[in-house]
């Protein structure tokens, strides 16, 4: 049970640190909401299709900006702190799990803010019963995105070009998440089954979790 104890303790501390600095709240959310505004503006007011593309824009921006939330966490991991955790006997896999937990919660917070903004700005026509699937797919996508961000952050730890390189690595690997997320809402509209998409998200999350936990030890050494 040390594993979960360590993971939860790390997640707890990460969240309390973020609560005190608040970059997600101060920078990522406002900028992403502005990005949401761009579409109606650039498409021209007369375009009636604005309410149609709402969900798609939500997913695209959510993934691109949400990535930054996960990557920020990785950036806070200075070499001194990595050494400290190692010598405190923290299992790298537990650290990965803890990071994934706290990052997922933050990313979820970000997605919620974005979702509300999207609903207000785009007033999309959604079929009945969209709430459950939307929440489920958002949660799963947030988890996957965070896992990816944490992994990419570790791989690029200590590199100067870190943020951009990590973005480059995360963005393509995030494609299954985008597909799964956006197709879930699509499927409801078309009254098709959402199961395959939810399963795709779930499978991606699990694969990333396995990769993260399995590769945690070699990853831990990458920055050295």
């Amino acid at each position, binding site marked *: 049970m040390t594993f979960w104890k360590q993971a939860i303790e790390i997640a707890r501390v990460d969240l309390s640190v973020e609560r005190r600095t608040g970059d997600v709240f101060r920078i990522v959310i406002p900028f992403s909401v502005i990005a949401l505004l761009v579409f109606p503006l650039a498409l021209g007011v007369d375009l009636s299709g604005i309410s149609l593309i709402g969900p798609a824009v939500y997913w695209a921006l959510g993934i691109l900006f949400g990535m930054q939330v996960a990557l920020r966490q990785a950036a806070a991991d200075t070499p001194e702190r990595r050494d400290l955790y190692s010598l405190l006997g923290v299992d790298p896999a537990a650290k990965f799990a803890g990071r994934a937990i706290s990052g997922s919660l933050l990313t979820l917070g970000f997605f919620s803010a974005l979702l509300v903004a999207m609903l207000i700005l785009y007033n999309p026509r959604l079929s009945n019963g969209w709430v459950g699937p939307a929440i489920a797919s958002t949660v799963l996508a947030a988890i996957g995105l965070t896992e990816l961000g944490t992994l990419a952050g570790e*791989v690029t730890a200590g590199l*100067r070009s870190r943020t951009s*390189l990590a973005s480059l*690595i995360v963005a*393509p690997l995030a*494609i299954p998440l985008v597909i799964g997320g956006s197709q879930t809402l699509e499927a409801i509209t078309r009254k098709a089954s959402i199961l395959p998409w939810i399963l795709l998200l779930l499978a991606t999350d699990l694969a990333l979790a396995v990769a993260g936990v399995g590769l945690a030890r*070699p990853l831990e050494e990458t920055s050295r």
Partner: protein
Amino acid sequence: MTRTRILFALAGIAVAAGLWLAFTSPTDVVQGEFSRIINVHVPSMWVAFMAFGLTAASSIAWLLRKTARWDRLAEASAEVGVLFTAVGLFTGMAWGQAVWGRAWDWSDVRLATTAVMFFVYIGYLALRRATPDPYARARRSAILGAIAVIQVPLVYFSVNLFRTLHQTQSIRPDGSTMPTEMLIAMGVNVIAFTVLFAALIAARLDVAKAELAVAPAPVQADQGITPPRLSEVEDV
């Protein structure tokens, strides 16, 4: 060196045979002469898949063994894989232009996922360039190499997941949907491309070894650090 030459000679013979079959085998009824592109398009993609698989396998081997050979193999394989992906993309786009009337189509997930796979491995190579220390580079890229391979099944199964323009697999456990002659031509080409792949890898490994030989020898870290020259303080 000789290994590389022999492989290239074999690849030359095999590719020549493949091309001959490609131009003599019967064509598709609907697509006409254009269907011959299949003999380059499909083997390129399959060899690319294989290359990325090999990158993943050697990455894992590096993580287990930590010997530089596996790292060099992973790199060589990724580079060659990117090359073959480019060939596959290019032939696909040419084919699309001929039979669909356009080179690229957004509504096709196979196309998008293939492009993404291409960029994932561009990212892998970028990560390698960004890391100067050889050991750190090996470790970092081994991890990415092991993760990035999930892109391959995504590309492969994308045709089944979506309604696409792009063809679904024509070779399946339950039998093939292609005429036998076409199948034979393609089979020979797949073999030829595989030999070419091996030859390119061998050549890339030779280059890597040559680079290693000319790499500067490390210098003792504290060699350039001297006691201060206090007498010259006023000269600054």
